[in-house]
């Protein structure tokens, strides 16, 4: 069982590229920020390393940060072997929101990533089926962005009250 700080230190020690910094939080949970183009390698390492063994991805959430003009993805990992948890974050600019897919590492990321694409428009490179999951295929826009404007009609039905 490791604390997030120890995990961050361990990661920085083992992996040179991609681990940016450890952010302790004022309240709640601390996290480690990563580079979006190396997340897959780090994920693999996290899963397979004998001292970490993060075998489940509990949650993958997309976030829109309107102030910074950025989109972010938060990964919550958990190890059933050791019982420790960690939160990882990546940030990408909103005009080129490309993050590496971790679908091949944790299968559960499949639907989560599709949802993040659907809701926030984050593109996951290497995902086998990057299609909308909750909204219909012909939906316009990504609803969870803070600047989302609801479309007026969908297939001839008004969407407003």
């Amino acid at each position, binding site marked *: 069982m490791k604390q997030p700080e120890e995990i961050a230190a361990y990661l920085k020690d083992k992996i040179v590229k991609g681990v940016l910094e450890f952010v302790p939080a004022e309240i709640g949970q601390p996290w480690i920020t990563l580079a979006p183009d190396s997340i897959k390698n780090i994920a693999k390492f996290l899963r397979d390393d004998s001292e970490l063994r993060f075998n489940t991805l509990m949650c993958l959430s997309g976030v829109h940060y309107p102030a910074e003009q950025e989109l972010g993805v938060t990964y919550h990992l958990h190890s059933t072997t050791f019982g420790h948890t960690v939160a990882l974050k990546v940030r990408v600019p909103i005009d080129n929101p490309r993050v590496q897919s971790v679908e091949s590492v944790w299968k559960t990321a499949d639907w989560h990533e599709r949802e993040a694409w659907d809701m926030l428009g984050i593109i996951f490179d290497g995902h086998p089926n990057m299609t909308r999951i909750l*909204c219909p295929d012909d939906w316009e826009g990504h*609803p969870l962005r803070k600047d989302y404007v609801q479309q007026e009609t*969908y297939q001839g*039905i008004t969407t407003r*009250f």
Partner: protein
Amino acid sequence: MGLLDKKYHDSNIIIVSLESALNWARKSSLWYEQFGLACCAIEMMATAASHYDFDRFGIIPRSSPRQADVMIVAGTVTMKMASRIERLYEQMSEPRYVISMGSCSNSGGPYWEHGYHVLKGVDKVIPVDVYVPGCPPRPEALLEGFLTLQKKIENESIIESKPSDKITEEADRHETT
């Protein structure tokens, strides 16, 4: 209303008693289309279960829309689902009725303001006969909705209505489709 809808031009004692018999049959045997959408579907199941027992009213579920008389829209209709609801309604055979159960299908309910993906009232796609309020309605409220629908059925007629009525009815139909 079915095959005999407005087939008679004037009323006499036979037709009137036939009419009441037919209306009695229709109102006593409302088979509902068995599908649930959301929270209200759980209460619908509870209504069909032993404690409230739909079957007392002769109401039983049919899973094929062809054999159903009444569609209970039990829950939130989303944009993705709206066209399916419409098609299901079209598949039902006349005479058919729709009960809108719960706030969501009445008007979008809690989701009317920010729910970009929620249809704001099922009456935007299909004509609704009875609105049952509640979120979700108690099983008794749904049963009361059925009693209200029965009242409506009792007043239906196989006698052709007067021309003036007809025009408004036509207009209504155009509005709904």
